[in-house]
């Protein structure tokens, strides 16, 4: 009831204020630059906590703000934001990860610190904005706002092949976004509702043919972002070249834009097309799970291995989402959060050893457990969470996804996907063994220092979340549930409504021969 007015805007634009403040600070004064960014991200995080406490457990958008913004010709764009159970936790995830990401690059980035921090904060604005937008055009703007700082983070502060990785990232994402923009504008005219309000679009009934094209345009943008097989190859490069904070944000939050896009836009807006393409997307998800796991297994670079494991995890999310039932979608959403925490943590861990040894090759390590016991414990916990061991967060999401998918029409896909639990154990534990166990032979590893206080401070919140979400996920699921119900209902009701319309038309023909596929009926 006591929902603070304009809270969402305050959270979203706090980083922007931070950017403005940063502009006035001497670029050589690194500690102030870092400190200020840290404070700003922390304020944003603290400001986002009332969202959880003030959130009413129902399906409505809450903390809504609506301000008319651009009125140009036939276009009416509003600054229309709000959150429901689906976006609530993603906003929290974003504000939660950001301070951790900032803290992680305290010593890693020494060049152009000012620009770097500005990029990080702009990125946060973009991500938060995209999660809270109800106006579709606003969503698109924030979506693009995210892209550019990330491009620079990879391209400027990245590793050896940073330009290649950045361009690849840019081209992939841009191709998707542009198609989405076209589809968005088309949809606007088709709907004729006079504004870009998502809730209005939800009510529009589109014919299946239109839906197919619009869905494909949206889905391409989102599938690239997820990334789904076979559109995933930008990810390993982007991850390996990006600095640690970039990888963490990329994995923990940016990838969620893709899956979020499916849940929020592509599926409920185009239910018939969703139904039509469910087999395709389920197939790609399952291929992604198995394929990425197999490829991860043979990686020589720890960071690439983690990047491929991301592809596999997101495959689970997509499978759950396309199951379109309570458990599947809830599992998918939980898995998005879990992946944010666990894979974010994994990239931080890779960053720790990279900072120490300036290599990420598995063969350069071995026996680190002896030298770095605290690190070993942290690494082990995060590894287990990534594997989805019961008691950690990874299990709850993965289990619900598989259960939901099994109950839906995707039963056979689920059986294959379930075998992913074996493969994830193989590649993660094998990597862990080669890095952490064995003899401490390499002289360079014999002088490694264990985690310092800053690094422990970074990891502790993540580890707490790993266990909290694994042992007591109820608050998360409870707050999501109504919104999930609505999303499923929106998608399924429209599917059912169209089927009912078609039934009478089909009946006369149906008698002599087998019923033609429903989608040829347009």
């Amino acid at each position, binding site marked *: 009831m006591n929902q603070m007015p304009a809270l969402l805007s305050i959270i979203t634009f706090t980083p922007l204020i931070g950017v403005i403040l940063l502009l006035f600070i001497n670029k050589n004064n690194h500690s102030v630059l870092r400190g200020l960014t840290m404070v700003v991200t922390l304020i944003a995080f603290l400001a986002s906590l009332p969202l959880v406490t003030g959130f009413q457990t129902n399906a409505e958008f809450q903390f809504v703000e609506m301000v008319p913004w651009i009125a140009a*010709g*036939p*276009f009416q764009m509003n600054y229309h934001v709000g959150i429901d159970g689906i976006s609530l936790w993603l906003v929290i995830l974003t504000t939660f990860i950001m301070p951790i990401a900032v803290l992680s690059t305290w010593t890693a980035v020494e060049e152009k610190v000012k620009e770097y921090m500005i990029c990080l904060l702009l990125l946060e604005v973009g991500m938060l904005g995209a999660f809270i937008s109800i106006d579709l055009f606003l969503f698109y703007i924030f979506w*693009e706002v995210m892209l*550019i700082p990330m491009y620079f983070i990879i391209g400027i502060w990245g590793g050896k092949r940073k330009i290649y990785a950045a*361009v*690849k990232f840019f*081209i*992939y994402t841009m191709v998707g976004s*542009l198609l989405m*923009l*076209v589809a968005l*504008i088309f949809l606007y*005219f088709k709907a004729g509702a006079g504004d870009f309000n998502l809730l209005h679009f939800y009510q529009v009934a589109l014919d299946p043919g239109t839906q197919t094209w619009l869905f494909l345009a949206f889905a391409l943008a989102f599938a690239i972002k997820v990334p789904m097989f076979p559109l995933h*190859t930008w990810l390993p490069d982007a991850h390996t070249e990006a600095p640690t904070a970039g990888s963490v944000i990329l994995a923990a939050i940016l990838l969620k834009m893709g899956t979020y896009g499916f849940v929020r836009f592509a599926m409920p807006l185009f239910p018939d097309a969703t139904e039509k393409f469910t087999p395709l997307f389920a197939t790609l998800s399952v291929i992604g799970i198995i*394929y990425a796991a*197999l*490829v991860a*297994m*043979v*990686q020589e670079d720890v960071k690439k291995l983690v990047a491929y494991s991301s592809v596999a995890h997101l495959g689970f999310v997509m499978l759950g989402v396309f199951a379109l039932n*309570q*458990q599947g979608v*809830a*599992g998918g959403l939980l898995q998005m959060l879990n992946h944010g925490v666990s894979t974010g943590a994994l990239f931080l861990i890779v960053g720790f050893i990279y900072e120490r040894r300036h290599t990420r090759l598995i063969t350069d390590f071995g*026996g680190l457990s*002896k030298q770095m016991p605290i690190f070993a414990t942290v690494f082990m916990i995060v590894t*287990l969470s990534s594997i989805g*061991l*019961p*008691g950690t967060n990874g299990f*709850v999401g993965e*289990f*619900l996804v*598989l*259960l939901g998918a*099994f*109950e839906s029409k995707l039963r056979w896909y*689920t*059986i294959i996907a*379930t*075998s992913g*639990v*074996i493969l994830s*154990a*193989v590649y993660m*534990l094998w990597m862990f*063994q080669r890095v*952490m*166990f*064995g*003899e*401490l032979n390499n002289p360079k590893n014999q002088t490694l220092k264990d985690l310092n206080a800053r690094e422990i401070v970074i990891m502790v919140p993540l580890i707490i979340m790993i266990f909290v979400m694994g*042992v*007591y*996920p*109820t608050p998360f*699921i*409870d707050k999501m*549930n109504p919104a999930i119900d609505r999303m499923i209902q929106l998608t399924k009701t429209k599917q059912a409504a169209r089927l009912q319309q078609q039934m009478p038309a089909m009946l006369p023909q149906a008698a002599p021969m087998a019923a033609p596929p429903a989608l040829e009926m347009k």
Partner: protein
Amino acid sequence: MFDNVWLIPLFPLIGFLINGLFGKAIKEEKVIGGIGALAVLCSFAVACMTLFNIISLPVHERVHNVPVFTWIKSGTFQADVAFLIDPLSCVMLMVVTGVGFLIHVYSIGYMHGEEGFYRFFAYLNLFTFSMLLLVMGNNLLLMFVGWEGVGLCSYLLIGYYFHKKSAGDAGKKAFVMNRVGDFGFLLGVFTLYWWLGQNHGIWTIQFTELAKHAELFQGCTLLTVITLVFFVGATGKSAQIPLYTWLPDAMEGPTPVSALIHAATMVTAGVYMIGRMNFLYIQAPTTMMVVALIGGATALFAATIGTAQNDIKRVLAYSTVSQLGYMFLAMGVGAFAAGIFHLMTHAFFKACLFLGSGAVIHSMHHALHHCHSHDDAQDMRNMGGLKSKMPLTYGTFLIATIAIAGIPGFAGFFSKDEILWQAFANPHHGSLNILLWAFGACAALLTAFYMFRLVFMTFHGECRITPKAKDHLHESPMVIVFPLIVLAFLSVVGGYIGMPKILGELLGGIPNYFEHFLAPVFEFSEEFTKAHAHVAGHHSVALEWGLMGLSVLIAFVGIGIAFVLYVKDTTIPAKFTSAFPALHRAVYNKWYIDELYDFLFVNPCKALGNFLWKGFDVVVVDGIVNGVGSIVMGFSGILRYIQSGYVFNYAFSMTLGAVVIVAFYIFR
């Protein structure tokens, strides 16, 4: 009455947290070990109270669900953290906490001076916690938490000496093979939950609820599938064919771990799981046959390998695989109570054997270390004649060996004989019964043989250890010997609570207390069998006596052969080996099953991964992307003058593009 049962798993969890978080700072071994052992002792005390409470209740009121909190709830699905207290879980509680406590005590002595002492006890307590969740969980998912948790602890403890590559490999192998089983377990949960909900509107994974609706499964066409995939889970956890190869390798872990996890408790989880869901298995005759056959075959197959191993712990490991096979044989022939009974007696004598072998290794290790010898402290060829050096260890070891060999009067005899009889006389498998019995009987012969081979090679004959080291051999301290004595005692008396009917009648009407106690758990299966049995069990008492006599005879024959080969004329084994070199090599190399699995699964997976990465990702997908990229680059060579590299330029061009597209729609 049972409100406090959540304390049982809580104590070890607290122990784990204390030792895990602060063990390094505590440093003092006595304190760390004390905390670890005390935690399990407290659980044992509460478990005893629980058992007495259960016994004090009338037979039909012995099932209690004790909820703690809701764990996962989504739609119709709900999994609670809640505990099931019934006779079956009580038996398991006693085994886990009782034997577990003894092994904790033993570990204080055995692990003395090891680096990472605190880590060991933290893991051991975490294991106990997980195992207790497994046996107390009142639903499939909480059982699965324990199921995976024990697998994790097994992984951590096998890899305890993580600087050794072999230990790391063995840990990983155990975890991955267990995961293959878990894959089956999960599919079982999905199918079971979905089928019952879809067809009968009962959405549950809770054992008591499932049991209540057991008869609904009569018409379930998927029941065979459900029970089989669960059984896949059991083969992974309980090291049955085809997923048994991790257990022998697991001997890389410290010996108390082998005793606790890889003999007494964790590996029996699969047997417990089938016992817990007996009402499903009994209705799936095909699955029952598969379980019985796999169990019987594993019992025999593992025993053959056990005859040719020289590493004292490996012999015991194959022996464990074999004995677990007996338990599954019992489950598969519907003798659930007998299977659980063997689980319990096996826990006593096998823990005793492992701990005894640990005492031997410990002593050998110290002696060899003293004179800087690099001989293998676990190789029985380096032992011999330890009888006089370690009399208490020898005595307890011998008792446990007699028990496992199936000599009347000792615990193993009662449980094993019951299984063999049921394999022969059960009404489920018709003519297959003879084969099942033969599997069991042959395995019994081999068991008696390899166990006494072990005893003779280790404790009898000439001492083959270097003379210098010989003087340093000594009996272990009390903290190690005490658990041995208790376990040896249990290996004798443990059998009398489950006296076979004919023996009990002979001795003046002693009932089979154990079977009576468990009867409520297996009631449905009993009724079902009575109603559906193809042939009523018309086996004469004389036949039962005859078979019992035969199995005793078999045991003595096995011992006799071992005596001739390893005491009387010790040149025979070498002669035999040189006469059949191929056979010996095959058995010694465990029938090359590991190599076969590498060839069939491990290598192809790696090759496929490499191909997909370097072939598909890099060449195909990136080839396309880079191709597109270079076209764009070539094109942008012309346009590079407008590319300044500034953010606002990009933003500007993007907006411009958007405006153009928008304009197109407005003015078309």
